């Protein structure tokens, strides 16, 4: 699993190992970067001698891994009620092709962070976000208006998904790409305009979550798009922005429900595992309400279970929880398909080209549309 989760679950794993003597659980601390974790997992699976039993996976990997035959369906172990306690939004992305492949550990969704000391209310539409940013920049309150993830990588696809949904568009509809729609053109034009208007720094084209947080944390920006983990960092003792930050869902067009890209992490059982029943026991423990409560209390991770979200004691400790639950309920998935990685690669590449001004928004989206159509055709996959 990625290093961050390995660190967060370390005390729990230790407790689990002490609580019984049959199963000895050891956690392999992977890299931080999602793509690097994926490379590591894939190379170990391809080499055929994977030492792992359970894999902590990003939501977009599931169909690819399942199609490659690396995962074991979970419904035979967990029964059909496995997802009953999950909060609305968290149940998405665990099943594919009629089987349950994954049980979520933490939920993750795209959030808009805003500065409560600079404005009374967060913006609701793209236009409002631009207006507030420009006003604050003109007044010299902040250097930049809005920072987000614009590097050519998965993070940019996440940025696009929620904006696209919020503009009334879709990435895929019935397996067919919809990327030359008016909504997609508007979104890409808006992102480019943010750079032209000076609301977003040009370096956004190389920004990841950590870069954006770096800029926001120094007080240089009024808004940031990031995942829930940033909340704990921004409010840690000694932070310049402690108590001055609010979270909400991403802006969207009037009349369209706001959307948040889902990015949850969950456990899957590997079909090559030699200890499947033991692994299921571990999986139950690690996704339990007790574990999730602990992870939220100590590390600020977002739970997926309804019973944890509604735990009054936890809400008292962590008042932002209901806001997170609302965002989770508004969450949208990225396309569930084995060729998602290719589709996303095309999308982030083309949007990055629009952001850097390599290509105009309209021809860019036409090109993306035709490239995506050709990919689906030539790979022979359903989108």
């Amino acid at each position, binding site marked *: 699993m*990625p*290093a*961050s989760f390995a660190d967060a679950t370390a005390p729990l794993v230790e407790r689990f190992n002490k609580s019984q003597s049959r199963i000895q659980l050891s956690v*392999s*601390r*992977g*890299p*931080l970067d999602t793509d*690097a974790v994926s*490379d*590591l997992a894939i*190379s*170990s699976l*391809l*080499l*055929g*001698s*994977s*030492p792992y039993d359970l894999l902590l996976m990003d939501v977009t990997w599931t169909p690819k891994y399942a199609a490659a035959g690396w995962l074991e369906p979970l419904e035979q172990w967990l029964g059909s009620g496995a997802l009953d306690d999950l909060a609305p939004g968290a149940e998405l992305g665990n099943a594919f092709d009629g089987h349950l492949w994954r049980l979520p550990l933490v939920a993750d969704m795209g959030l808009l962070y805003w500065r409560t000391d600079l404005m009374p209310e967060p913006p609701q539409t793209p236009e409002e976000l631009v207006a507030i940013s420009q006003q604050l920049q003109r007044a010299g309150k902040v250097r930049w208006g809005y920072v987000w993830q614009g590097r050519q990588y998965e993070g940019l696809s996440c940025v696009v998904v929620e904006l696209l949904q919020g503009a009334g568009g879709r990435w895929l509809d019935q397996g067919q790409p919809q990327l030359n729609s008016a909504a997609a053109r508007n979104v890409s034009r808006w992102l480019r305009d943010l750079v032209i208007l000076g609301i977003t720094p040009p370096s956004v084209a190389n920004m*990841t979550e*950590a*870069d954006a*947080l*770096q800029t926001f944390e*120094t007080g240089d920006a009024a808004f940031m798009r990031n995942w829930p*983990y*940033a909340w704990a*960092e921004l409010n840690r003792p000694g932070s*310049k922005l402690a108590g001055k930050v609010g979270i909400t869902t991403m802006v969207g067009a009037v009349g369209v429900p706001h959307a948040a890209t889902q990015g949850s992490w969950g456990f899957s059982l590997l079909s090559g595992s030699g200890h499947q029943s033991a692994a299921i026991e571990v999986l139950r423990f690690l996704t339990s309400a007790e574990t999730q409560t602990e992870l939220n209390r100590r590390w600020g991770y977002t739970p997926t279970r309804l019973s944890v979200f509604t735990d009054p004691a936890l809400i008292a400790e962590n008042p932002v929880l209901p806001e997170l639950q609302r965002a989770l309920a508004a969450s949208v998935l990225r396309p569930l398909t084995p060729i998602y990685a290719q589709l996303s690669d095309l999308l982030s590449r083309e949007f990055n080209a629009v952001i850097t001004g390599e290509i105009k928004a309209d021809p860019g989206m036409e090109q993306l549309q035709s490239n995506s159509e050709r990919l689906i055709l030539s790979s022979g996959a359903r989108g």
Partner: protein
Amino acid sequence: MGRTVLLLWSLGPMLWQLYSSLRPTQALTGVGSGWTLDHYRQLLSAEPPFGHYLVNTALVGSSSTLLTLALAIPCAYGLSRLGQRPARQISLVVAAAAAFPAVLLFLALLEVARDWQLANNLLALSLPYAGLCLPLAVLLLRAAFREIPLELEEAALIDGLNLWQRLRWVLLPLIAPALASTALLVFIFCWNEYPIALTWLSRQELLTLAPAIARIAGSSVYTIPYGAFAAATVLGGAPMILLLLLFQRQIISGLTQGAIKG
């Protein structure tokens, strides 16, 4: 003047890494100040500790170097004693192999590793490494062998020394500088190799330096671990710097002896 520019160009980026590795993460973005050894402490106490990767890499490097020399010495000797025409043709093949970008091989090597159970085996990694280093090693050593006058070997032959004895007592000592520089070049190659290590090794505790560093995670999810990266650069580069300091003279004289003409 030229000297100053040269030193600045070579050392500047490295000194910046050294500086970054000693600064607290917050200080790197202009907030806070002071010096710290935290990045090093964190690397050395990680699981597995950083020293582990150094040992792995040194192991792969040494075994690959030995294997390369074991194959290249007889081959180079044979080529240097073979007639003009066949030797030229084979040398051409070897040179062509040298001009082959190694990265093109990774996909096939991945399958080899799976089918022959060579994955996650540090010694097995020596096979492709030795193969990739062979062209350069053969070219260098062949040139060195050719420098040795034939009469010397004939005299040894008359003294009744067999091939192995001739190599061991007469020829190899004479090409020692070329041997040393070849060994160093091979070792440095193994120390730096990335794509094949990336596909052949998936167990964290077996990783060699290059993929390990590319996967380094910092102390905190919130920041890009530039400090830790920088510390890893310093720790991973230090052994090489030491080697160079010790053997700089040998490398250059060895290459000269090699007089590596086609």
